[in-house]
């Protein structure tokens, strides 16, 4: 690997599975679940977080030697809030419908624990390039869970992906619906997001038994 040393690529790959921010570190669940009823908002949310966390980590890392430790939380909040305002304004300008759908949850990226957690745990003690990789890696780990949850909820809940009817038309009874398949309307409701994440955790920990917690 020319661009990334082995250590660097570990920074990106680790959070994708064995150190996933959502399922292992328990961070950033707040804004993750409410918007995963469909695939499209999940992906937009994932991209927004990748941007905010990648850039924010670099900024904090560049300023790490001049931030007085007593007011660092406020400084971090201001940095995130500024970045989130940028994301919000861009979404409002280019994808107005989507930004209405995401409503307050774009704003809630500010208090997404992943971001503060990575600032505190990584960016304050490491150089900009490493912090950038760490930020992107963790945001990707977050995004993957979002996309998995969004995929299953949209597929099973409304029988569509990105709005395309991949399982056939429920009204005209084509494809799967012709043999009696029904959409599970339950999957669209908010509680199912929690249960789907619970199942993801279950699958992940059965595959890697080192991650199992004590009761």
């Amino acid at each position: 690997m020319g661009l990334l040393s082995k250590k660097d690529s570990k920074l990106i790959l680790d959070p994708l599975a064995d150190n996933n921010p959502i399922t292992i570190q328990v961070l950033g669940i707040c804004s993750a679940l409410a918007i995963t009823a469909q695939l499209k908002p999940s992906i937009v949310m994932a991209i927004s977080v990748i941007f905010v966390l990648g850039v924010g980590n670099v900024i904090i890392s560049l300023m790490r030697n001049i931030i007085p430790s007593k007011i660092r939380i406020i400084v971090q909040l201001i940095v995130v809030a500024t970045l989130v305002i940028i994301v919000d304004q861009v979404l409002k300008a280019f994808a107005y419908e989507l930004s209405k759908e995401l409503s307050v949850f774009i704003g809630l990226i500010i208090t997404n624990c992943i971001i503060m957690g990575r600032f505190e745990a990584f960016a304050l003690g490491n150089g900009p390039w490493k912090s950038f990789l760490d930020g992107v890696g963790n945001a990707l780990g977050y995004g993957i869970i979002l996309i998995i949850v969004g995929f299953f909820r949209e597929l099973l809940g409304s029988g569509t992906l990105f709005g395309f009817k991949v399982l056939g038309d429920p009204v005209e009874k084509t494809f799967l619906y012709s043999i009696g398949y029904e959409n599970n309307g339950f999957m669209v409701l908010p509680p199912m997001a929690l249960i789907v994440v619970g199942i993801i955790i279950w699958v992940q920990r059965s595959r890697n038994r080192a991650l199992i917690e004590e009761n």
Partner: protein
Amino acid sequence: MEHVELFFKSVFVDNMVFAYFLGMCSYLAVSKKVSTAVGLGAAVIFVLTVTVPLNWLLDQYILQEGALSWLGAEFADYDLSFLSFILFIATIATMVQLVEIVVERFSPSLYNSLGIFLPLIAVNCAILGGSLFMQSREIESFTLALNYGFSSGIGWFLAILAIAAIREKIRYSNVPAPLRGLGITFIITGLMAIGFMSFGGMLTGGDEEIEVSEVRSAEVEKTSELNTENIAQNETLEVSEITPQ
């Protein structure tokens, strides 16, 4: 009446945790014991009650379109609402710090029980979420904003208290190993959220009454049988089951 409705709506129907997943991080992290859960819950109620009305004032007199008109006519068409994230979070962080200082000075015992949780709260999504929902729902008056902050806090408190109690009990159960800890907590929260959805029908009650009484007055004119009322009631119930989405 308005206040009572808002109170029940924010506590049960629009519960911060079960309907919007706000404050999940601290909800999952601090719910292992009932006593700590109560401490954090009380701190959340307190901070929400203080910050939501404060941010309401900011929103009304600084941020909204035309809100600056009290400064003079030339400021009337400014729209600063894009600044709301940064202002809200600054208010919250400052208030949390201030509350911490005041509580430490005047009530050391309360400080000892709340103290460790207060810094956590500045980055709790439920707090910022409360202010953002207050803004997007355009709550009309200061007292309603106060009520909204307080009652959402109560809703969050109830949620964390319930999950902490369940988690204390579940320690003695035989949970499948990979689900232990986080996994089972997610699934229980999901089940509780399904339970809380049943409160969704509570608020359509008022509308139902109006519709039923309309049906009734129509019936008096037509002198038809009472059955239509039941049918109308069933219909509105069905509708209300679908609408929470």
